[in-house]
């Protein structure tokens, strides 16, 4: 559940609001930056959207009737806001990416290599593989596999049917794991 934050602390005067905000930034902003890095295509985009979505989520939660909110609620709202912002920023015609990179076709599963090679890879490298995916596939993979959203929730947020979400996730997994295995 995480830490609980009280609305009145943010709305108080005499520097109490700054103190509450500093506390929230210290606890939650690093997680938000990490989420933005997974969902966005570049680090610059991730830094910009992390701040923007952080503020918008805070304003929305302060405008709600509830007197307090926890870290989990904040992060969930952050993800939803981030996804909607990314989808709104997309330009051009979308082309479904079902092709596999040509280099990867040469690779075959090698019985003599260490099957646990992927465990040595750092997190940033995995994120680079995730960024290679199509925007929608990247979003769907992050939401369903890493952030534990349900298919219904994802379908509602992205405005797609559940069947298309299922197809998207299967394609995303195949492309991602193939991309990871290709480094061997």
């Amino acid at each position: 559940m995480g830490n609980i934050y009280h609305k009145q602390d943010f709305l108080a005067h005499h520097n109490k609001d700054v103190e509450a905000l500093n506390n929230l930034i210290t606890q939650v902003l690093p997680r938000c930056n990490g989420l933005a890095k997974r969902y966005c295509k570049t680090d610059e985009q991730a830094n910009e959207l992390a701040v923007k979505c952080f503020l918008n989520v805070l304003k929305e939660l302060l405008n709600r009737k509830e007197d307090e909110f926890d870290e989990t609620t904040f992060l969930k709202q952050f993800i939803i806001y981030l996804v909607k912002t990314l989808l709104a920023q997309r330009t051009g015609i979308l082309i479904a990416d079902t092709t596999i990179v040509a280099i990867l076709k040469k690779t075959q599963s090698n019985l003599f290599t260490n099957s646990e090679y992927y465990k040595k890879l750092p997190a940033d490298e995995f994120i680079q593989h995730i960024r290679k995916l199509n925007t929608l596939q990247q979003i769907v993979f992050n939401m369903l596999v890493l952030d534990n959203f349900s298919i219904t929730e994802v379908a509602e947020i992205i405005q797609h049917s559940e069947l298309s979400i299922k197809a998207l996730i299967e394609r995303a997994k195949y492309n991602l794991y193939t991309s990871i295995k290709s480094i061997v």
Partner: protein
Amino acid sequence: MADINQDKLIEEHLKRLLSDYSVGYTEEQKTKIINEFQHFKLHNNNIKISFREIIRNKTLQFFIGTIILVLLLIYVFVKIFPSEKKDVINNPPSEPSTYTTTNNDTCQISPYHIDSAKDKSSATLTIHISPKDTISNKQLLNSDISTQITETSPKTVSLDTLYNKPKRKKKRISKKNTDTDEIVPLPLLEPQKPQSNPDTREEE
């Protein structure tokens, strides 16, 4: 089959590694967030914040509650006890009232009776004069509460208060006839024909 198992392993590894993945924030990000929040708070939530603080402050709650209670009590009091003017018209006094003239003579005024069959504005006034003292018209006219009864119809009279009729010559009552006091008919009063109205002028 091996690939499927490996995919699952990779997926589990990714979940463990990236689900709590965090990146440190910069000072630039922090100052930007604080400035934006202060700006947002100043321009959008001033009224809401003060209102919320008022509601939450118990002392202010107490004061506002007492003010509302007092206003309610005043409202209820006004409803229960309306103004006197209405009472006089709706509930005429039943007991006779007395007044004293300048010579300390007492006169008894019976309560006026409003004939409901007639116009309500008209009223009859009967004055009972004490048998002990004789009151001249002049004294009566000079009394504090001097009234003039004006005739509006042959049967009814209307009462106007606080009007001093000009003096008229009246016969003096002789002192010899003390037993039988002659009461000079007052111009202010007119004899009344017997009616259902029980209040009539008495002569003694």
